[in-house]
């Protein structure tokens, strides 16, 4: 006589519906369980289809961002000279930021880190400045942000072609929260475009559409004399970049 099976808890059913690691997949051989799981999946799809996920994620980011501390009332006048000095500094800095030949190659307000890994049969190795890759080499990207930020990740190659790496699909930026370096799910294979692949992590505190960013980066890539090293300045966005050297045409120019 066989032991009656323990009924699955609601959490186990949810884990099966989510296909989570550790979910009791062997129980899917029971048609009743399989039916319950399928019903949950249907419900999940309906729920997601009926929501504005971007709006939900943005509301979540707002809830997670601590409100900046307000100075006590008695200190406000004391801070006025400092505020004026800051305003003057910003005014003085503006021409540098908007100058296409401006000195800083990367404009960073917050701290973003972009890392590229060379994927080989033996594992993944962070790509350093001396690494030169070739067509067919596999690369995986990692990134981290120091505060909640909406990001888009694109790259420009030696033929001035543009690739969007993040978002994987969809028209909008992706919200990231601080943490250790996050590797993107998918690696990609380098093509035969010569010299370099340069990655740009474009970020802003608010959500934004991908299309205008692509348009600006494409226009920049078309006209800039040295896309491997010229600064990319996007008005209203912070940009962090990373160059991966490739064989052909003498490396990055």
């Amino acid at each position, binding site marked *: 006589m066989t032991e*009656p099976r*323990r*009924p*699955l*808890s*609601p*959490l*186990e059913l*949810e*884990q099966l*519906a*989510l296909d*989570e*690691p*550790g979910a009791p997949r062997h129980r899917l051989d029971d048609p009743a369980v399989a039916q319950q799981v399928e019903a*949950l999946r249907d*419900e*999940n799809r309906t*729920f*997601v289809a009926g*929501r504005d*996920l*971007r709006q*939900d*994620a943005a*509301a*979540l*980011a707002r*809830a*997670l961002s601590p409100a900046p501390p307000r100075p006590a009332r008695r200190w406000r006048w004391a801070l006025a000279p400092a505020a004026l000095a800051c305003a003057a500094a910003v005014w003085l800095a503006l021409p540098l930021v908007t100058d296409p030949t401006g000195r800083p190659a990367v404009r960073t307000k917050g701290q973003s880190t972009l890392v590229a890994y060379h994927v080989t049969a033996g594992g993944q190795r962070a790509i350093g400045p001396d690494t030169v890759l070739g067509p067919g080499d596999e690369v995986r990207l990692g*990134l*981290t*942000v120091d505060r909640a930020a909406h990001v888009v990740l694109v790259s420009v190659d030696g033929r001035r072609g543009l690739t969007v790496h993040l978002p994987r699909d969809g028209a909008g930026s*992706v*919200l*990231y*929260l*601080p*943490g*250790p*370096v*996050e*590797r993107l799910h998918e690696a990609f294979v380098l093509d035969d475009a010569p010299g370099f692949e340069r990655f740009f992590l474009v970020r802003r505190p608010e959500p934004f559409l991908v299309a205008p960013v692509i348009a600006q980066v494409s226009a920049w890539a078309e006209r800039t004399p040295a896309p491997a090293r010229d600064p990319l300045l996007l008005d209203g966005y912070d940009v962090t970049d990373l160059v991966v050297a490739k064989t052909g045409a003498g490396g990055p120019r």
Partner: protein
Amino acid sequence: MNDGHGPPAAIDVEALYARYAPMVFRRCKALLGHEQEAEDLLQDVFVNVLRALPRLSDRGLSSLMYTTATRLCLNRLAKHGRKYEVSQGDDIDRFAVLDEPAPSWLRVYAHQVLGTVETSTRVMAVLHFVDGMTLQQVADATGMSVSGVRKRLRQLKARAETLETTPGPRQQGGQDD
């Protein structure tokens, strides 16, 4: 999301929300019995979980979302002086297959008993007695040892038995931890 080992790294919040929000919403709705209240609590659950992420080890995210939703719902019910009611559709017989004898007192005394203990114990009680999770599963979900869970539930049962033999008005409202 990360690759499954160690603490999660930076999070694609939109993807996280798309994946887990339906489950969290369903859980909140089941415990609170109101769609709008479940909607209100949805964001709180994610905020709680995302704030805890840097401290997490290998606990599964679905389990954490589910347990957090349970805790926040029970807190909310306690705050508003409401009771968690086992619905008529719940199958009391399933308790019989768990690690403990079927707690026939549960339906009658649930709110009196659960109202007098700390939130973490309430969460364990609901996961075990209502959801039918084993002690091991409750331990995994709450980050406690099996013996710790067993001890808490035994204390809860003892308290229930005391209440059962002591008729009269029950004290409402427990501690939140």
